[in-house]
């Protein structure tokens, strides 16, 4: 799974007929009704669609946080459906980074400690951890803020800390569920520039859910969800034009 692969080669992620049903009987909710999707290494994909169309459910499954009810999920060519909780935790730890709408930082914990968190679980030594965490914070433009707690940072800065935490393990994929949902337009564009850089420069594959067409326009591919199914899946001509 080398980074910055040619998008035409073997897909990094493959979904075949993924379904997800919550609850049973009358309370049954069919959140995903058969999703087929292929994502190659190095792609920047935006996922759009109305509220309740299953975007988050799909992201959680893609991020090994949840298991599908049916269908097959291939990651790096290997099927992951049969893996247990701890094996999925190891996949998250080594290959993924998450960015959430609500930042999900540990409260009353410094930015540096927040960014170090995934490295702690990798069992990395403290000194090395600190170096990598500082580097990651510098990369998102937060040098000098290492000791700030989330409450001492603006929303945009907190989201940068979350991105630093996502990239500190040098992941293959970043999964971002409405990363700009809580931010104003100017801050949103800053975050998008950051993510774009990570995709273009570092070759990290990015999957991002967003409601805003302006943000989706940063991606080179836009998938529309409707009612638990993929409605459209198109190359984004604007991004392609920008890249030229």
């Amino acid at each position, binding site marked *: 799974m080398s980074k910055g692969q040619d998008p035409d080669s073997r897909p990094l992620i493959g979904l075949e007929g993924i379904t997800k049903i919550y609850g049973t009987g009358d309370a049954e909710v069919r959140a995903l009704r058969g999703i087929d999707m292929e994502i190659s290494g190095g792609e920047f994909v935006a996922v759009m669609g109305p509220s309740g169309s299953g975007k988050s459910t799909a992201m959680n499954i893609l991020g090994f946080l949840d298991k599908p009810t049916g269908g097959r999920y291939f990651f790096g060519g290997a099927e992951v459906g049969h893996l247990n909780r701890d094996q999925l*935790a190891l996949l998250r730890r080594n290959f993924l980074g998450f960015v959430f709408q609500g930042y999900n930082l540990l*409260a009353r914990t410094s930015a540096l400690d927040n960014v170090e968190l995934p490295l702690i679980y990798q069992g990395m030594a403290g000194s090395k951890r600190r170096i990598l965490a500082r580097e990651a914070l510098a990369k998102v433009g937060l040098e000098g803020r290492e000791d700030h707690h989330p409450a001492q940072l603006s929303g945009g800065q907190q989201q940068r800390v979350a991105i630093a935490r996502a990239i500190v393990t040098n992941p293959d994929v970043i999964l971002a569920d409405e990363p700009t949902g809580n931010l104003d337009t100017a801050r949103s564009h800053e975050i998008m520039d950051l993510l774009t850089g990570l995709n273009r420069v570092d070759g990290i594959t990015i999957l991002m859910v967003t409601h805003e067409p302006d943000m989706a326009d940063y991606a080179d591919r836009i998938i529309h969800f409707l009612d638990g199914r993929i409605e459209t899946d198109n190359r984004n001509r604007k991004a392609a034009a920008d890249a030229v």
Partner: protein
Amino acid sequence: MLYEAVRLALQAILRNAFRSFLTVLGIVIGVAAVIAMVTVGQGSTDQVEADVSTLGTNLLMIRPGQPSQGPGSGGGGGTAASLTLKDVDAIEQQISSVAVATPSNSRGMTAIYGNANYSTTVTGTDNRYLTARSWAIVGGRAFYESELRTGTAACILGETVRQILFGNGDPIGASIRLKQIACRVIGILEVKGASSFGTDQDDIILIPIRTFQRRISGNQDVAMIYASIRNSVSTEKAKADIESLMRERRRIGPFEEDDFNVFDMKQITSMLTGITSVLTGLLSAVAAVSLLVGGIGIMNIMLVSVTERTREIGIRLAVGATERQVLMQFLVEAIVLSLIGGLIGILLGLALGLLGSRLLSIPFAPDATIVLAAFLFSALVGIVFGYFPARRAARMDPIEALRHQ
């Protein structure tokens, strides 16, 4: 990873320092109680043993009265005929296993010298008392034979009495008053210290037995006889010899009960240490219950903490913590919490033990084994009562946990 877990645990504990303190209070009290009890109990046992060895393990006490009466019960013995000076001589001379026998009659009295007065115990006896109790004269002299025979008012002072009446002055040759008796001080006893009963053994004045009988009790009775046994013979043998001699002298028929008691120091020791160990056991049981309650307190607060930190757990799971890592984190937190309680309890218990031994004037005898046991036991409490909450944290569903507000 363990180091990280301990660091995280300390962070979480200090973040809620006051709540953490309340949580471990049960453990603190339980451990402190055990340590203090065992320390004081061991101290008093040591003291009893030390006393008995200064008193001499080869000492027997003979008193009139029914055998059911303990060695500490009041003198006289009701209807039973009292002992006499002839009994003392008979025991010493006719029983080969007895080295020395001596009478001992005691009464609480006020001793006055100049402006100083002090309420003490006056014991009427003879010089054999000093031999029997291996008690040395450190100033002046023992009684003269003539003083003993005629019942002269001559006194030998214990150190406490000397100190209070005379301070730094020399008491030898001075005349003190015991009620209406003017008594000449002839000697000073060596310091003995406190006894296992907590009484000050140096709080005593010795006078000749005949002086006591004539001028204080007003009769010929001997309240108690001390008999010291030769080293080569067993206590049981000497006891049996004394009993049969006394039965004979007191004309007790073959089917009649004794109307006197012979106690040995072992009996007194075992009685005292018995009381101590019953008390220690009882309070240790109370302490164990409080440790259990402490453990439940820890479990309760850990459950609250796990619920409060659901979102945090979700974040940890999302960034790749395994079930085991989350379990370890919360388990270590519970263990650290209860170990902190255990350590505070150990320190508090030792402090209370020290205070208690000072108050009871017994040796401070901290027991390393029990301190270590208390430490390990509090770790165990943390493991046992921390496991369930930790497992609950580890088994959380990451999505649900992240969604938790």
